[in-house]
């Protein structure tokens, strides 16, 4: 069990080269469609809006989530990849997992504190797949009902206390 207090590590000084980051997103989308991580399906038609993606994820065989289908939503701010994407589960089936709240918010350090621009949609998907696959008991986080009632719509506004590093 590792408890860490989260502090926002980003300040606001950004000089953006819009085209550069748009090209990176485009490139990520193409490579994700061509070589998706196991259990991940990306619709090539992500609509006009490159800053909002929906990604389908299948529970891996031999895990507690086998046979289940989930939908992930990625929201990218204009500061991406210097700013982490906002990643949530959406749709009718939110995985029951100790790090996933029933409103779809995911408690995963690389999505906030440990984000780095060298990470990508692909690595985030892999982390989520492995987080689900290593789960030993299907249950909601202990503070689920309080959190869901009080939290901000944007999971990145949450000051997370990471429950542990292993799952």
């Amino acid at each position, binding site marked *: 069990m590792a408890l860490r207090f989260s502090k926002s590590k980003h300040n606001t000084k950004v000089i953006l080269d819009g085209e*550069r980051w748009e090209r990176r997103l485009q490139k990520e989308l193409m490579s994700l469609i061509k070589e998706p991580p196991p259990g991940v399906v990306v619709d090539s038609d992500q609509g006009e809006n490159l800053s909002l993606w929906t990604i389908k994820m299948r529970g891996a065989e031999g895990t507690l989530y086998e046979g289940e289908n989930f939908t992930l939503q990625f929201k990218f701010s204009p500061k991406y990849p210097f700013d982490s994407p906002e990643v949530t589960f959406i749709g009718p089936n939110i995985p029951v997992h100790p790090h996933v709240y029933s409103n779809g918010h995911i408690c995963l350090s690389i999505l906030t504190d440990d984000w780095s*621009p*060298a990470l*990508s949609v692909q690595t985030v998907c892999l982390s989520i797949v492995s987080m689900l696959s290593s789960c030993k008991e299907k249950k909601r986080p202990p503070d689920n009902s309080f959190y869901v009632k009080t939290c901000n719509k944007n999971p990145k506004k949450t000051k997370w206390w990471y429950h542990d590093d292993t799952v």
Partner: protein
Amino acid sequence: MVITVQEPSVICGEFPSILHNEDYTIWEGHLSVEVNQFKIKMFIPSYPLMTDASFECTPYIKSCLQSHVDNLKKCKTLLNLLYCIIHIIKSKLAIATLPKDLWNGNMVKLSHTVLMELEKSLSKENVLEIKESFKTVKLKYNDIDGNEHILLFNVTSEYPKGNINILEIDLPLEVVESLAKVNTIGQLYDLFKQSIDSLLPFWRICKNLDEKSWVVEPSKPQKRDVYRRILISEYLSVVLTFNPFDLSSYPDVKFLGSMKAVAEGKTKYIRNLELFGWKEEVDVAENLIHLFEIEKLPVKVSTYETIGSENECYICFMNTIENEEPPSKWCNNPQCSSWYHHSCLVQWLQMVVSCAELSDHISGTCPYCGEKLWCQLRKND
């Protein structure tokens, strides 16, 4: 009509001012009609067949030929077409005075001089491009090791008076400086070839070293680079600077790394160099292994799964960006495969509150492996 295989050589003989590309689909140059020169560029996509043939010419010539298009279309060979065009222009010239868009005498003289020189000193396949009315020329030379070398230069319109300006070349600085002193295209190309041939042993040494060691700088060694920064150990790297024309002397060595590693490495190197000397019979890598008393030189490994292909920036996933140096290695962790554009890395480090920004540099951690790193800030950051 029977098309003879010798047609290209016949055309080259009859029209020496017209050059063709490798597969004969583009013919470009000047047609001489009496004392005048006309610029023309012909596209013959299915050469020797004249299917879909087309050409570009000056407005005046176009107006001359317009009423004869049907005749021109009947031409079954390029030679035939060229004769046909000349015939039409000749007949027009007889009745019309020359308009302004014809070449002035000066230009004609220049094109002749340049072409004559090119013809004298090199074979056609080494001429890649002639642009801007014969003022810009691109030549190539293939050395016996199979490398292609490019030389792009331009001459003044008063050529052979005035300087030859070298626009593009990839050879060590001192060679480029000596090339800049010659006066004629012929001399320039000869010296270009000579220099390349005499640099071959040096490039072979570099190639061998690049394969056997971990070259940190330059990120992508070019033919012009006479130095290599290579890793000796995790905390020590050396910058070797060669004299490409004197390979019997050992390279100049600068030590970089942690104070302790530099002190230790330097002591060993100097002591062993005095004791045993630099061995000419073995390669550079072997010498370094002996002199630094190491088992082997570190070679490039990447134990991390890479996101993009090699040499792409790990932040923007791009390689080339306008006005930006290509991505290079900033992280000193030998296991880390990351490459970053300077601007991408600085932008990230400046966003991380825990990064220490000093007057001329910023330090933080590698976005990929987390190792401590630092980089210089430039004026515009």
